C-alpha cells in the first residue's frame, strides 16, 4: 500500500457564510512534490493555513502520516516546514538573531543546514529584518522553513519576489530536498513554475479541486484545442461533453482530451464543415480551466 505523508479528505472551510474552501481532497506520497495550482482567491492559502493549524477547518480530515494531525504534538509540528506567501517576521531583530531564536524551538542542532542555506541563498545575517526587500525577506523565509530539515515542506507562492536566478537556486534546493526524501506541497498560481519540478499537480478553483494528475501526464499534453464548425454543433457538444472555451455561430472551440481515433469515430456521424486540432500550452490549459 502506498504511504501518504499528507492526506486531506473533503476539507471544507467557511468564514461565517463566506466560502474559503468547499471541497479539497488530496493525497501526497512520501518524497513527492505536489503542485497546488489555482488563481488568487481559489482557496490555496486557506487550505495551507488549515493544514498548519492557523485556522480551523469547518469539515473534513487532515491526516499526517496516517493520523489526524495534532497541533499540540510538537514532534509532528517539528516535522513540518512552512513558507507563507506573505512573510511577516520580527522587525526589531537582525537575521542572525531571528535564526538563533528559531533554533531555540528545535531539539536538534540546526547550525550545519543553516550555514548551507545561508551560503546558497547569499544571505547577509547582519542585516535587520525591517531593512529587507521583499526578495530578501523571502530568502530568510526559505531558510526558516528548511533549516530544521522538515519531512513535509509547505510552500505558499514561494518564489514571488525572487529574481529568476534565485528562483532557479531555490528550485535546485527543493530538488535536493526531494532526493533526501522530503515531501513538498508547493502552491502557486503559475503552472509553468511548478510543472518542471512537481510529480503531481492539483488544480483548485472556487475552493474545489477540479483536476488532479501526474505532471508527466499533463506534460504529455494530450490536451488540444479542438475547433469544430457544424450545423449539428448542439448534438456534437452533447456527444463529446468537453469543456468549451469559445462559441460563435456554429463554431465551437473545445479543450479536448479524447484520443484522435476515438474522436474521429464519434464525429463520423455528423456533417462537419470545419475541424481544427491545435496544440494547447500548459499555461493556456490552466487559464481555460478557470474561465
Amino acid at each position, binding site marked *: 500500500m502506498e504511504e501518504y505523508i499528507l492526506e486531506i479528505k473533503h476539507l471544507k472551510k467557511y*468564514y461565517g457564510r463566506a466560502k474559503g474552501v468547499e471541497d479539497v481532497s488530496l493525497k501526497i506520497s512520501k518524497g513527492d512534490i505536489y503542485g497546488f495550482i489555482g488563481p488568487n482567491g481559489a482557496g490555496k492559502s486557506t487550505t495551507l*493555513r488549515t493544514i*498548519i*493549524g*492557523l*485556522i*480551523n477547518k469547518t469539515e473534513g480530515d487532515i491526516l499526517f502520516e496516517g493520523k489526524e494531525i495534532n*497541533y*499540540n504534538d*510538537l*514532534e509532528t*509540528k*517539528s516535522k*513540518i*516546514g*512552512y513558507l*507563507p506567501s*506573505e*512573510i*511577516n*517576521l*520580527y*522587525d*526589531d531583530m537582525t537575521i542572525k538573531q531571528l535564526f538563533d*531564536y*528559531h533554533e*531555540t*524551538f*528545535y531539539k536538534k542542532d540546526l547550525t550545519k543546514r543553516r550555514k548551507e542555506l545561508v551560503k546558497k541563498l547569499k544571505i547577509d545575517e547582519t542585516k535587520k529584518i525591517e531593512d529587507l526587500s521583499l526578495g530578501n525577506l523571502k530568502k530568510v523565509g526559505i531558510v*526558516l*522553513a528548511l533549516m530544521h530539515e522538515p519531512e513535509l515542506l509547505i510552500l505558499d507562492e514561494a518564489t514571488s519576489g525572487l529574481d529568476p536566478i534565485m528562483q532557479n537556486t531555490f528550485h535546485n534546493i527543493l530538488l535536493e530536498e526531494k532526493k533526501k526524501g522530503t515531501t513538498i506541497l508547493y502552491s502557486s498560481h503559475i503552472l509553468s513554475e511548478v510543472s518542471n519540478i512537481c510529480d503531481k499537480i492539483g488544480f483548485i478553483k472556487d475552493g474545489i479541486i477540479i483536476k488532479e494528475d501526474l505532471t508527466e501526464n499533463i506534460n504529455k499534453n494530450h490536451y488540444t484545442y479542438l475547433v469544430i464548425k457544424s450545423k449539428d454543433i448542439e448534438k456534437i457538444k452533447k456527444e463529446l461533453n468537453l469543456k468549451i472555451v469559445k462559441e460563435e455561430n456554429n463554431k465551437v472551440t473545445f479543450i479536448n482530451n479524447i484520443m484522435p481515433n476515438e474522436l474521429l469515430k464519434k464525429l463520423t456521424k455528423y456533417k462537419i464543415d470545419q475541424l481544427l486540432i491545435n496544440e494547447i500550452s500548459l499555461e493556456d490549459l490552466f487559464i481555460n480551466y478557470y474561465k
Partner: protein
Amino acid sequence: MLKREFKVNLKSFIIYLSILMIMFLVVYLIYPYIVTDETMKSMDELMKIFPEEVLKTFNMDMVSITTAYGWFKSEGFTFILLIIGIYASMLGGNIVLKEENDKTIEYLSSLPIKRKTILSNKILVSITYIILMLLIFGIFNYIAFLISGEFNQKEFILLSITPLFIALPLFSINLFISMFLHKTRKTIGISLGLVFIFYIINVLSELSDKVEFLKYFSIYTLADTRNIITNVKLNPICITISILITCIFVITSYIRYTKKELI
C-alpha cells in the same frame, strides 16, 4: 521565547515606570517648598469648600496632605491606581494580539510550540512586569519616605501591594477581550475606556448612598484603600474576588485562544 517576550515588552515597562517615578519625584522634590504654614491654612479653607464626597474620592477626608506621605495616600494613590491600571489593561489587550496584528503569528504558528505555551509565556511576562513595576516603584517610594520623614511602614507596604488587586483583573479582562479581536488598534480604546469607566463608577459609588451599589460593578472597588488607611490591613474579600476574576478570565482566555482563528 520567554527571553524575547521580556525584551519586547521592556520598553513599555520602562515608559510607564518612568512616568510614575518622574511624576512622584517632582512632587516629592517640590513638596517641602509648597507645604508652609501659610499654604496649609489656605488649603484648609479650600478643603472646607469641597463637598465631603469629593474629598472622600481622594481619601482626603481621612488623610492630611501636609506631608508627602499624606499626598501619596490621597491624590498620589489615585494616580498610581490609574497609571498601573492603564499599564495592565494595555498589556492585556496587546501582548497576545500584537502577533496577529503584525501577522508574525503565521511564523510563530509554524514553530513547534503549543498555543497554550505561547499564551502562558505572554501571561507570565505580563504578570512579572506588573509585579516588578509595583516592586521597583514601592522601593522608590520607600526610599523617598525614609528621606522625607515619618511614615507607617506596614500601611505603606499594604498600600504598595494594593494596585496588584486591580491590575491583575484589568489585565485578564483585557486579555480575554483581545481573544475576540484581530487588530490592536481596537484594543487601545477598549483598554483605556475600561480603566476610566471602572474608575468613574467607583467614584460615583462613593458620592451617595443611593448609588453605592455601583461599587459592585467596578474593579477599582477591589483596591480598598480606605480600609487599609483606617485598619492597616488588607480586605480578604477584595483579594479573593480579585484572584477569582483574574483566574476566570485567564482560564476562559486559554479556552478561547486554543480555538481561535489566528488570521
